[in-house]
């Protein structure tokens, strides 16, 4: 399901496609990135995230379809929008012989900055990324420092739109927090297109998310809408004294008498009508107990404790679990 709002788009893709021989890396992708949003672009490895980014930043040409970046088409090698964007690749490459302020000064000059404005932007971005006072050559930088310098150069021109490809993957926890804080500060004024597989980062800073798999869009929604759309809660339960659920009895209750689980079964789906609240439940071993996904949450909240009590067992934990973005992501990608 894709949500499309009426806000102005920073990026719009229309059936964007990229093919390498027989391999379809990006398959009719339709994205809508609202201006000012922090847009999480999620997908497993090989899903087509970097290929999409390469097309949107002018590094590769689409095989078919089109995309509008800040209102300008990316087709026909159009590079006129590059002055208004910033780009941080996953592994930014620098000239080892340069020093950070020299690289930023050069980057700013390319965007037409000069004089006091250039100097102040270099100082601001160095400060923002924690590189103020670092005079050594970039060749001696750690990967984390290079990533921060990459962020600085992506912001030097105060871009309307910043593309980031896995911006936190090489950073230590502190550096990661700083980058995410920086992104949060930019939210609202600058559109951030943030490709990542770190779901915690997306949950923390993004307001909208698109999930792609095998080059195709699985869903695009605001994160809060996504949670509501896939808000099927789980019940996690543990029994006292390490006791286990009587699967035979659970099956019999769920399916009706005579039903029994296969030997060694640790998960399953009771899909036929049985006892109210237990019919159609899905269950699997989870941590010390069981994770149960009922088809009717309210009925299961009443039936399960009753069922367990009937078995002569005592509950140690019985809690409702809201699905994390990871749960939703894994679920959606598996389905697609």
């Amino acid at each position, binding site marked *: 399901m894709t949500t499309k709002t009426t806000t102005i788009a920073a990026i719009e893709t229309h059936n964007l496609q990229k093919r390498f021989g027989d391999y379809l890396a990006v398959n009719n992708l339709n994205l809508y990135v609202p201006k000012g949003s922090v847009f999480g672009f999620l997908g497993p490895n090989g899903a087509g995230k970097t290929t999409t980014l*390469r097309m949107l930043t002018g*590094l*590769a040409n689409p095989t078919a379809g089109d995309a509008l970046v800040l209102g300008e088409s990316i087709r026909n*090698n159009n*590079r006129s929008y590059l002055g208004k964007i910033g780009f941080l690749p996953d*592994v930014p490459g620098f*000239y080892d012989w340069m020093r950070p302020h020299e690289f930023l000064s050069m*980057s700013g*000059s390319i965007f037409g900055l000069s004089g006091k404005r250039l100097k102040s932007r270099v100082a601001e971005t160095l400060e923002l990324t924690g590189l103020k006072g670092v005079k050594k050559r970039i060749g001696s930088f750690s990967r984390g420092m290079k990533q921060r310098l990459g962020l600085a150069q992506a912001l030097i021109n105060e871009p309307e739109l910043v593309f980031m490809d896995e911006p936190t993957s090489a950073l230590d926890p502190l550096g990661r927090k700083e980058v995410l804080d920086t992104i949060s500060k930019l939210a609202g004024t600058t559109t951030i297109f943030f490709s990542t597989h770190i779901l915690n980062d997306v949950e923390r800073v993004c307001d909208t998310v698109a999930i792609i798999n095998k080059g195709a869009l699985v869903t695009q929604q605001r994160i809060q809408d996504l949670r509501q759309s896939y808000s099927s809660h789980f019940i996690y339960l543990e029994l006292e004294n390490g006791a286990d659920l009587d699967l035979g009895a659970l099956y019999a209750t769920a399916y009706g008498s005579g039903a029994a689980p296969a030997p060694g079964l640790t998960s399953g789906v009771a899909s036929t009508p049985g006892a109210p609240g237990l019919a159609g439940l899905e269950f699997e071993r989870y941590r010390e107990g069981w994770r149960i996904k009922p088809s009717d949450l309210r009925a299961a909240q009443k039936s399960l404790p009753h069922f367990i009590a009937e078995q002569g067992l005592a509950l140690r934990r019985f809690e409702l679990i809201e699905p994390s973005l990871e749960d939703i992501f894994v679920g959606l990608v598996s389905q697609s």
Partner: protein
Amino acid sequence: MSGASVFLKKEFREILRTYKIYVVPCLFLFFAITSPLIAKMTPALVKSLVPNMEINLPDPKAADSYLQLFKNFNQIGILAVIFTSIGLVADEKVRGTAILMLTKPIPKWSFILSKFIATSVLVLSTTILAYGICLFYTFFLFKDAMFAVSAQAVILAAVYYLLIIAVTLFSSTISRSVALSGACSVGGFFLLSILPLLHKSLATYSPGALPTFMDKMLAGTATFGEAVPALIITLVSAAVLLILTVQIFKRQEL
């Protein structure tokens, strides 16, 4: 400043701040100093090596000094130019610097032309400086500078080196690695060198004829006018190759 001029400035700074400023200039200046000396001392050296044998060697002349210089330039010198230039584009692609630069408003043509201009300025200024030193040193040792002929030979050399730089830049652009770029560049240089041996017209009109014309002019067996067709063909070849390189790079995906 436009993106193109900023990138050109970066290319010059890169030459001044890396090993590139040492390799070609040091080698060419070394040849400039040693070539006249070797030309002057070779007969005496040969005689001293075989003292009991009567050897009649012609007296060394100013031309020998330049012949020695251009022999060194056109072999080891060109290989040095190639090996300092093979990474011009390939290295930027491999290291990812091209990605950072080309997602900024730098025209792709200027990415290639900046590299050609900066490398050409380095090689040609070094060649002219080395020639100037050799000229002075030759006059000092031989009391004859052969200025007109040697200057014409330098013009041929300069144009030939422009083509070598264009070949290297082309190889670096079409290659996915620096090693492959090196192999293609040396292969291109080898091809240019053997073409004159394949056919009589190629010996007169192909770019690879220019080093032979340099030798012949210094030996007094050819004139500059005879080398002009090969000179023009070399210039046109360099220009065509450069245009082709830009067109290929424009279509390349990074």
